[in-house]
Structure formats: structure tokens, C-alpha cells
């Protein structure tokens, strides 16, 4: 990382022939024309910001000398709503944070509420379906990240390929819960209903096809020479920087930090799955450039898709018939207490802090959104890069504005 060039002095606009010799013997330096940095708004309507985010860029030609993200265009008071509606009624709102991984959002909220209800038993089949859905949703989310990152770099076609496979996952989700984007399927106590007949076989078929397609996408975009040139050594986040900014998810692992909540603070049956060797945690290795560059982050996401596939297969082996949801009353009353549960979302740690006074409504609802936390690194990462690099960096953070603003 080069340090951002600072404008040290404002050159005075005086003709050069007025320059005098100073007592020190130096000639005065005047410029005929004044130059200044150009301030330009990237966003709120800009294709590279993946939504309604605004980045105030200060540029010197193509060189970005300063960047400041401005948020809040999509703020919907989600946390306040969480404190005004009943426990179950808040579940659909969680879909809308990170609309690309709604299953995981449901899961995080449900786990936080279940942590307050110790007597609630979650059936094993429900847990397995939760894991299948969460991992399929992770694949779908990473597919969008991969496709839109291609768009940011200027490659259009991978986007369509990624969306074709995502369409398949969405069709699977549509069969299981009727919705394609905002599922509200993972409920407090389990999942809403059992899988339709043959659904698990369809998931297995998807896994087989996707494994082949994945290699194609990897060769087409990730190993593409121009793509590597555009992303390697760009936007390098060092390990210290990743810790300082509290990065999580692929952003953290791209910097070479071996940390995954699914393995290190296991929830559901992820601990058992990891012991069975169902998944590994990929980390950035700096294969094409420096550890923690944009290429590493993208590659970590790509490899994670395959690891998720392994998890789905493991769950398909383990799943047995049985109930899918525990004994949950129609109107949930949560015992008094407070709980924080963070899970590994596609974008990082999505945590819910829930506080209950024993009533039908939460007294405090707080969401730790990974996109929001990961976004903070932009301000330090973008100065000193080229304009095209700054687009590559924003893309590699894989933010979803619905989640940053909530």
C-alpha cells in the first residue's frame, strides 16, 4: 500500500515570470494554472456501489486520494421494529437485512431467541434442514458476490452463469417455503415445515451439477489473467488491519486469519460436521499477489462455495425422518434474560443481541451486521489507489446495503 499523496500546499496562481529569487538563493515556484483535487460522488446511484451507498471520492486524475463512505439511504429502523413487534413477527424483518442470505439471517435471529428459551428442544431433522438451507443460501450469496464482482471488473458473462445456478437454488427454496428471496423459513424452534417429497434428492442433484460448473467459473474468471492483474495486490488488508477493523467472514479469512464461527464457536451441528471432515476453512494465501488482496478475498469466497457443498452433502447423509420444529407456542413468551448469538453469515458474523423481560416483545434488539463493520475498512483502503481499483475494492468487500443500513 502506498500512502495517500497529500496536497501539501496550494500553489498560488501567479504567472511564472513573476517568480523572484529568494534570499536563500532558490527561485520561487508559481504555476500559471491552479490545480486542485476533484471531488466526485460515487453513488448513491452508481453501479459499483451495489445499492444506494455513496462514496465521496477525492481524486487527483485517476488517483483516489480520499474516500468517505456515506450510509443510511436504506435505513428502515429494523432494530426499533424488533423492539415493537412480537418475537415471531420480527422474523420476516430479518430477511430484509441481507436479502441475499435471508436463511442465515433467520437462523441468527432464531438462535438468539432460542438461547433465551433453554427448555426448547430443537429436533435433529430441523437442525439438519437448517444447515442445508443455510449452506445453500451461502452458495447463492457467494454466487452473487462472484457474479457482481465480475461486473465490477468488467466481465459480464460470469454474472449470468452465476445467476443461472442461483436461480436453481432459489427454485429449491421456492419449493420448500414458497419464497425466492425472503424466506422466513427458519423459525424459532426449528424450521417452518418438512421438506417436500424428493426435495433432498433435488438438492443432491444440484450438488453434483454445481461441482462441475464451479470449476468452469473458477477457470473463466478467477484464473483469468486480466482478472488477476486487476485484483492481485489491490486493496491489501493486512492481518493487523483486519483485526483493528473487526472484519469477519471472507474479508477476515482473505487476510490469512484462520477464523470461522462455524468451526471455532460451533452452532447447530457444525462442530460435528467439522470433526467428520465435512468442511475446511479456506484462508487467503496470497497465491497471486499479497495475502489479503482482492483476489484472495474472491478466491476464499469461491472455495467456500465448495466447502458449503461438502456440508450440504454431509447433512444429506445424516438427515433422518422426524419432526422439524420443537414445541413452540403460538404466542411466544421468552423468559427474562439477554443473549447474543453470532453466526457465520456469507458476509461475516451476523449477531443478534436480544433482551427480554419475559414478555411477548423484546425489550432490546441489536444487530451486529457484518457488511456494516466490513465497510469501515474502505476509508483506509481506497486512498492511493486508482479509480478502477476503488471499484474493485468496494466489490471485494461484498457489501449488501440492506444490511449496512438495516
Amino acid at each position, binding site marked *: 500500500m502506498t500512502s495517500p499523496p497529500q496536497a501539501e500546499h496550494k500553489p498560488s496562481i501567479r504567472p511564472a515570470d513573476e517568480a523572484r529569487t529568494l534570499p536563500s538563493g532558490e527561485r520561487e515556484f508559481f504555476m500559471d494554472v491552479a490545480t486542485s483535487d476533484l471531488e466526485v460522488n460515487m453513488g448513491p446511484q452508481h453501479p459499483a456501489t451495489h445499492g444506494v451507498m455513496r462514496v465521496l471520492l477525492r481524486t487527483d486524475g485517476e488517483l483516489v486520494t480520499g474516500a468517505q463512505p456515506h450510509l443510511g439511504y436504506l435505513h428502515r429502523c429494523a432494530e426499533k421494529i424488533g423492539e415493537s413487534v412480537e418475537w415471531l413477527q420480527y422474523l420476516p424483518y430479518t430477511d430484509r437485512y441481507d436479502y441475499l442470505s435471508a436463511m442465515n439471517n433467520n437462523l441468527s435471529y432464531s438462535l438468539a431467541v432460542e438461547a433465551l428459551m433453554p427448555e426448547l428442544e430443537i429436533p435433529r431433522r430441523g437442525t439438519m434442514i437448517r444447515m442445508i438451507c443455510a449452506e445453500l443460501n451461502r452458495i447463492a450469496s457467494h454466487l452473487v458476490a462472484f457474479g457482481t464482482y465480475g461486473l465490477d471488473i*468488467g*466481465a459480464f458473462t460470469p454474472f449470468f452463469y452465476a445467476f443461472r445456478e442461483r436461480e436453481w437454488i432459489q427454485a429449491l427454496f421456492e419449493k420448500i417455503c414458497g419464497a425466492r428471496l425472503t424466506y422466513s423459513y427458519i423459525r424459532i424452534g426449528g424450521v417452518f415445515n418438512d421438506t417436500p417429497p424428493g426435495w433432498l434428492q433435488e438438492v443432491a442433484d444440484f450438488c453434483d451439477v454445481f461441482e462441475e460448473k464451479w470449476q468452469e467459473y473458477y477457470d473463466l474468471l478467477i484464473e483469468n489473467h486480466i482478472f488477476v492483474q486487476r485484483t492481485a495486490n489491490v486493496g491489501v488488508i493486512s492481518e493487523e488491519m483486519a483485526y483493528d477493523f473487526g472484519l469477519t467472514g471472507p474479508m477476515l479469512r482473505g487476510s490469512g486469519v484462520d477464523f470461522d464461527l462455524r468451526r471455532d464457536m460451533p452452532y447447530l451441528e457444525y462442530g460435528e460436521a467439522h470433526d467428520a471432515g465435512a468442511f475446511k476453512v479456506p484462508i487467503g494465501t496470497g497465491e497471486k499477489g499479497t495475502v489479503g488482496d482482492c483476489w484472495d478475498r474472491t478466491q476464499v469466497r469461491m472455495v467456500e462455495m465448495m466447502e458449503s457443498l461438502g456440508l450440504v452433502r454431509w447433512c444429506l447423509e445424516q438427515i433422518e425422518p422426524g419432526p422439524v420444529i420443537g414445541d413452540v407456542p403460538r404466542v411466544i413468551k421468552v423468559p427474562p434474560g439477554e443473549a447474543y448469538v453470532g453466526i457465520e453469515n456469507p458476509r461475516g458474523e451476523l449477531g443478534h443481541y436480544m433482551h427480554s423481560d419475559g414478555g411477548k416483545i423484546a425489550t432490546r434488539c441489536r444487530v451486529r451486521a457484518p457488511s456494516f463493520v466490513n465497510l469501515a475498512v474502505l476509508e483506509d483502503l481506497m486512498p492511493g489507489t*486508482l479509480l478502477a481499483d476503488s471499484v474493485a475494492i468496494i466489490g471485494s468487500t461484498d457489501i449488501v446495503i440492506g444490511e449496512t443500513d438495516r
Partner: protein
Amino acid sequence: MLALMQNGGGALAQTPNEGTNFLHELLLWLPLPEWIPGWALILGAVGAGVGILVGLVSLIALWSVWMERKVSGHMQCRNGPMYAGGWHGWAQTIADGIKLFQKEDMIPIGADRALFVLSPAIVLASIFGALAALPLSYDWYFARMDLGIFTILAIGSTTTIGVIMAGWASNSKWSLYGAMREAAQVVAYEIPLGIALMVPLITLGTFSLLDASALQSGFFGMGWAIFQNPLCLPAFIIFWIAALAETKRAPFDLPEAESELVAGFLTEFSGIRWSFFFMEEYAAMFLMSAVGAVFFFGGFESPATYALRSAGMEGTIVFSLVCFVTLVLKAFTGVFLMMWLRWTLPRVRIDQVMTMGYKYLTPLALICVLGAAIWEAILHVVLN
């Protein structure tokens, strides 16, 4: 355009057809009354020539846009336009053109009105001028130019002025970025483009497109420059990369870079003005591919033209038509290649564009020229 009425500057001795252009022949053939003054004939011929050019550019753009949509569609697991016109959406571009004509003529507040209005005209005029120097067949041409390739490159380069004007006049920061990128990119790639073209020029020994084509008629119509000199293949690759940069096609589409600069210099343009830029882009793609086809891949020459020539049909309308179709097919192969690259490759960064142009392509093109010259010297001086 006065050259329209003349028999060209001074055709080389080996020129196959000592003829005139078809407008001249048309005027001679028409039973024109005596009282029409000479200047009216000239104006009429110019008007007809311009009309034909406009028609040509429109047809190229119409076909190319449809082709681009179908090619990209099939590469991206979709069908592309399927409804307008019935058969595979053939009328989609026409419908789009009508829509663009009907759109409100918008000039942003704060824009430099004069430049804003002028820039699409300059861009389109440059491509008209450059296409006028492209012969469509051995006896279908607007002007027989001995320095045809110089004319094409010189007039074609003025597109850049229009693009920079557009970016500046829009009074938008993103547009300005696009314009500056265009300026930097074109300056960097004009040089290797011109130098790479020197290789077939050395091989063939002519600047005229008609002569260049005729000189590649050996080996049953396959005596193409690319087979005559081994340095032509690397030269063509350099020419092709530079042509992509010249025509602002991916992976060098930095001036409009829609994920970085919104739409670059096109951001503030809409409606018919925007479509002018679009027409220019596709016509320039066709022109660059046609130039590559003429100087590297035999121009009008193919086994088909060889067969017709052997059958003694040279000079007939069938022969001209076959020559025309040959060139168009070769040119559109190039256009397809450009589309293929666009929908496959990511975009390069501006410093990489500059590095590639100045540090690699220009020296490599110079080496190619040197090698080609040595090859020709050995072939014609030492061995002869």
C-alpha cells in the same frame, strides 16, 4: 469528395481494374439532359455518395447491434431479442432506433451547448469520412486513393476529438473521466496500430486498399499477406489489440466503463445523439475489421473470387458482388471476434492499458516491422 468525379489520383501500374467509381459510371449511364449544369451533377453525385454512406453505416449498425445482442445472449445462456419482427427478433434494432428517434432531445443545464450538439456530429462524420475511403469491391468505391489506409487512419482518428468534446461539454465529472481516458488511450494505441500496419504494407508494397487486395490474389486466392510474410501474424495480433483500444471495445472499454464511470463520456447523452455514438462504435468495429481483412487476410480475395476469375468473369457484376460479400464476411468475422472478446474478458485498468501500449505493443510492432523488412530484403534482394 471531388475525387468522386475523377478517375482517382494516379493508379499504380499493376492495378487490375483501370476503372472509375460506380457513381461516375452511373452518371455516365443515366440519360441526363444537356441543360443540367456540371456543378449540379457534382452535387448530385456527392449527395448520392453521402446517402449511400449513411445507408451503409446504418445497415452496419443495425446488423451489428442485433448480432451483438444475439451473440452475447447465446454466450450468456439466454436468447437475446426474440419477439420484435417475428424471426429471432430481427427488427429489435429498428424498433430501438425508432424509440431513440422519438426520445426527448435533452441537453443538460450547464452543458456547453455548442460542443454538446457538435460532438455526435463530429464522431459520426469521422466514421463516414473513413468509410468513404474503404472500397467495397474492385469497382465499387467512392474514391480510388493511393494512400487509402492513411486516409482511413487519419480521418478515423478524429473520432477522438468528438469523444473528448462530448466528455467536456457534458459538464459531468464522470464524462470528463471518460474523455480523458479516451484521449490517453487513443494516443497510446494509434502508434502501435500504425506501425503494425506497416508490416503488410512492406509485404505488399502499397498503401492502396484496392491494390493491396489485388496483390493477395495468388495461390488460388489464398495468397494473403498473413501467408506471405511470417511477421504478419504477430503484426496482426498487435494490430487487433490496438484496434480494440481504438474502437473502445472491451477489454479496452475504459472511456465508457459502465461499472466505474457510470457510462463515461456517454453519461449525459440520450436519444438520437446517443445512438450516433453507438452507430459510430459499430461502424468503427466494421471498419477496423475490414482494414484488417484487406491488409492481412486477402481483402476481396478468396478461392471463390479465384474461381470466378479463372472462369473469365472478372469485371462482371457477379464478380463484384462476390468480392463484396467476401470482404463483408471477413469483416464481420472480425466483428464477431470483437464481440466474443467483449463478453469473455474483464476490463483492464488505465495504467495497464498505458503500460501495454507504450512498453510492449509499440516496441514489438517496431521489431515486427524490422523483421518484415529483413524478410522482404532476403526474399527479393538476396535470393533474387
